[in-house]
């Protein structure tokens, strides 16, 4: 787009302003007669300055560091507990500073809220300015065109009546359009993120092979709905884990590293709906009815059968154990048998997928279950489950219990442990894998993607398109009329403007010499 301006219009263009005008007002309110309003204005300008935005962005990155270095309450509560045990002096201090829940900590919220306010406060006024700037006509031709970065001059035989006029022209308005698009898209990204937070949800569910779960609040292990989401907004699908396969690299320096995970699932979009099958792999989620289901973890669930003192089977189920930090899927878990009589029974256990005895200690040498054993410590007494207070299924409160076995008892598949005092028997009957699923719904995802692409497009436009101005002025001189041409590129990215200007100047000169008037021709 090219705008050409003739002197018939208002030669003084108030709207014409430099690309990024320094903001009006003082750099600091100190020393002037500033009231509260002045201070507020000053604070707002500081907050919305690019410098503060960058500082906040840096702080945000810095604040995220403990979030990735320390175990977090949200995704790794057992890791936090382990940290408390191994660092008893340091952990309470870190906890006071919110470092085990960084992304929910008030100081972290303060940083990102300030950053958002800073961004919005910067982007909104800038958007208005850019919109104005994109509509602005080029300014009147300067008096001394020879002082411009590019200029040319030639004499012509134009009649004197036509002398004294000027033309100014500008090209590259798309640059401002790109700038505008970038800023609007940036706002769009913010709104999309807010949209996801208001109308989206995140949920987790552990699913043992061979079992089914329905996507309802009471069946989810974790459910974090957005502000405007209720349990009734969950997509009513069901998922069955038919089979889970994990394969590992068997030799070489990468031995024990995962090679592939594949969860074969069956699902229905509504209860009673047609049954479908699908695969879940890491980074290959499944979309069901607006929700996205990710495979985020897996482990082993050893199956135990417990009979109590009366000889009645009081427990017979696979029990998910969670892999610890020692590697090779050495996993810890708890078996609670609340209905054993005369006393409730509890077991803490370790599942070792490929067990070897290293100097009297069990170690796992491979993550696949090639030689699975469990090591159990038995307790009897009060589990604390009957007083109505919810408790973690991965922890055993032994304060009301008495330890039945002095040392951990190791069981191979099919082996049983007879509890002392005729309290009963526990049998390790086998194991099945489990998977951990993350169910997310983020309505802001697509708008955020579109806005992200638009922002990138806008940025490219604003980088690649040069805004440049060319002025032509005719003066009556003693020897006829002198035509001056001057030009400047409004940005540093002025590469190529020299050639463009030279060819334009040559074209003008040629046209004048042939006695034609370029502006007339344009009409």
């Amino acid at each position, binding site marked *: 787009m090219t705008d050409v301006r003739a002197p018939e219009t208002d030669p003084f263009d108030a709207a014409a302003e430099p690309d990024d005008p320094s903001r009006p007002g003082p750099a600091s309110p100190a020393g002037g007669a500033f009231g509260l309003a002045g201070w507020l204005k000053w604070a707002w300008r500081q907050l919305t300055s690019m410098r503060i935005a960058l500082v906040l962005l840096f702080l945000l990155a810095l604040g995220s560091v403990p979030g990735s270095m320390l175990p977090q309450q949200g995704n790794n509560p057992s890791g936090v507990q382990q940290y408390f045990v191994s660092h008893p002096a340091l952990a309470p201090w870190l906890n006071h500073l919110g470092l085990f829940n960084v992304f929910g900590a008030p100081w972290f919220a303060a940083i990102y809220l300030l950053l958002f306010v800073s961004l919005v406060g910067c982007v909104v006024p800038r958007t208005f300015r850019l919109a104005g700037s994109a509509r602005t006509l080029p300014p009147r031709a300067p008096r001394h065109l020879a002082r411009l970065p590019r200029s040319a001059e030639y004499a012509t035989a134009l009649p004197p009546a036509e002398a004294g006029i000027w033309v100014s022209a500008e090209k590259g308005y798309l640059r401002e359009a790109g700038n505008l698009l970038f800023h609007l898209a940036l706002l769009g990204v913010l709104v999309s993120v807010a949209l996801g937070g208001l109308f989206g949800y995140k949920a987790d569910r552990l699913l043992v092979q061979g079992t089914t*779960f329905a996507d309802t609040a009471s069946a989810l292990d974790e459910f974090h709905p957005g502000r405007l989401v*209720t349990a009734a907004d969950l997509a009513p699908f069901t998922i069955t884990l038919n089979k889970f396969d994990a394969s590992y690299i068997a030799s070489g320096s990468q031995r024990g590293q995962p090679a592939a995970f594949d969860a074969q699932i069956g699902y229905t979009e509504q209860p009673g709906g047609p049954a479908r099958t699908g695969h879940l792999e890491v980074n290959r989620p499944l979309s069901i009815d607006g929700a996205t289901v990710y495979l985020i973890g897996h482990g082993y669930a050893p199956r135990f059968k417990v009979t109590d003192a009366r000889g009645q089977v009081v427990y017979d189920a696979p029990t998910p154990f969670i892999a610890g930090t020692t590697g090779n899927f050495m996993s810890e878990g708890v078996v609670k048998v609340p*209905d054993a009589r005369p006393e409730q029974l509890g077991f803490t256990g370790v599942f070792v997928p490929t067990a070897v005895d290293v100097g009297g200690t069990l170690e796992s040498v491979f993550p696949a279950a090639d030689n699975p054993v469990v090591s159990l410590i038995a307790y009897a007494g009060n589990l604390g489950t009957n007083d109505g207070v919810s408790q973690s299924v991965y922890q055993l409160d032994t304060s009301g219990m008495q330890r039945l076995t002095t040392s951990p008892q190791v069981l191979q598949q099919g082996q049983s442990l007879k509890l002392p005092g005729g309290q009963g028997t526990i049998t390790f009957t086998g194991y099945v894998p489990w998977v951990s699923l993350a169910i997310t719904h983020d309505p802001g995802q697509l708008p955020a993607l579109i806005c992200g692409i638009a922002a990138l497009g806008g940025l490219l436009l604003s980088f690649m398109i040069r805004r440049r101005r060319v002025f032509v002025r005719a003066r009556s001189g003693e020897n006829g009329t002198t035509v001056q041409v001057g030009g400047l590129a409004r940005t540093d990215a002025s590469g190529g403007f020299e050639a463009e200007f030279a060819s334009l100047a040559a074209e003008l000169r040629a046209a004048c010499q042939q006695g034609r008037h370029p502006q007339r021709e344009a009409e």
Partner: protein
Amino acid sequence: MLAAAVVTAALLAVALVAAFAGGGSSGVTYLDGNDTAVLYASGHRPLAPEFSSTTLAGTPMRLSSYRGQVVVLNFWGSWCPPCRAEAPALAAVARHYQPGGVSFLGVDERDSQASAEAFVRNFGVAYPSVSDPSQVIALDFSAVVPLAGTPTTLVIDPSGHIAGAVFESATYSELAAILAKVTGKGG
């Protein structure tokens, strides 16, 4: 322009606070505020979704076979401490109201057969329970009442509509109050 920017920023900030605060909540949303025991006025009673399943004893069972009776439907699990806490009260309510024609039915959630049977033996539960290991029955009910966890106890009227609910551990007095309204007989 500054004012417009401030207003826009404030609005966005509020939206963002709301969005992020939502992510950190406990995860359970009750539509009826803090009231956990609810009574639905006639005309506002949601229809209980039909289900068919097998009882822990292996007998096929349909909810619609209870049509014409008041049914107390209790969602429970042997693994769930609040369910264990309410079990004695529920057994007592059943002993008191069953002779008067109120039926009781349990829905055993995300449980194993062995654990569920041990629970029933232990607490002397004298009414049947259907197995719902995948919680599909809970899913169906969550479409009509804000069933957000286990335990939940629903009272269904003779026409098959949900007349009352306790959305957590139920007490004798809560159930008695709901049953008095639904059966039309004093506690």
